[in-house]
């Protein structure tokens, strides 16, 4: 990929990243952090590529460790985010603003 195309993609992604979360309410801070955390588990595809292209046993061992870690990040991240959001449903409206990150926070309605 040529450097200018690369830079274009990065700059646009930065603006999209800023924009999509700019209006988040404080109650959703922890689930959003957790969801974003799961998304960077996409490093799994990088780990799969390096594991699939090496034959050296030592390098393969390291790559397989990377696959395990990345899977834990991605799968665990999505599961735990879903669990946090599941708790929001059926709960009474939130009392006051819980401090961000302390526990999970609740969502009104």
């Amino acid at each position, binding site marked *: 990929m040529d450097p200018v195309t690369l830079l274009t993609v990065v700059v646009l992604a930065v603006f999209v990243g800023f924009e999509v979360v700019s209006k988040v309410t404080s109650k959703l801070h922890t689930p959003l952090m957790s969801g974003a955390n*799961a998304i*960077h588990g996409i490093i799994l595809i990088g780990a799969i590529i*390096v594991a*699939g292209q090496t034959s050296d046993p030592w390098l393969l061992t390291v790559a397989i460790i990377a696959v*395990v870690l990345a*899977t834990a*990040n991605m799968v*665990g991240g999505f599961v735990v985010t879903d*669990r946090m959001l599941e708790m929001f449903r059926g709960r009474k409206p939130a009392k006051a603003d819980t401090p961000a990150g302390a526990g999970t926070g609740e969502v009104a309605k």
Partner: protein
Amino acid sequence: MSVLTPEWTALLYLVSAVCFILALKGLSSPRHARRGNLIGSAGALLAVITVFLSVKLDNIPLILAAIVVGSAIAVPIARKVQMTQMPQLVGGFNGVGGGAAALVAVLELGHNVDVWVRIAIVFTMLVGAISFSGSAITVLKLQELMTTRPVLFPGLRWVMSIAVLASLASAVLVVVTGSWIWAVLLLILGLGVGVLLVLPVGGADVPIVISLLNAFTGIAVAASGIVLENVLLLVAGTLVGASGTILTMAMAKAMGRGVTGILFGAFKGGSTAG
């Protein structure tokens, strides 16, 4: 298998990237948060299927076994952990992601000779290692396996400065020589910087630091996208890096604190809440 042409691969990666954008968008609004998370996981699944169908891979049974093992470890923990322990769990998952990024980068060192790629490699290794060890300390603090109060010792500022300078020096050496020895040293120094970065942070501020390290891992993953010439890693990593930065600032603001104050307040002799 390489069933998919490069065009189809790129198209499917684009669909995944859009899923991730919709996921972040959904997670920012109370009504669509859960659906957003589901869209994100669908995008991730699509990306994993795509990589198996587009790249010629050896060791597929081993890779699949590793994925099963990773899920078998993570899912029960994610299901059973108490609600109050969620922040440290996110911290832990974030740490292993950073570690994975650092390992992927170090493995690419043997392949590439291009200096720009090597710069991306050392960047990924350093940031990934900082995220890994920093997250480990956040987990220890929140689980109260170590003191939740800021850990300070005389000369911390100097130790930190030396560690940062040494890691930059070894990063330059890796770029110039491409040697494994310097790469291992760089990883160790990165781990040290991560520990030193989080030790002075007080317990109440730890969730904000987890969010910051989350953004760090995102940036490391983006750099690994440059290393592997993979646009999806680049886009997804950048999205998390950017949104994670905004989120960190929003969290700090909600608690009436500044991000620099949290990270460096202890260095200046000011106190952090703990």
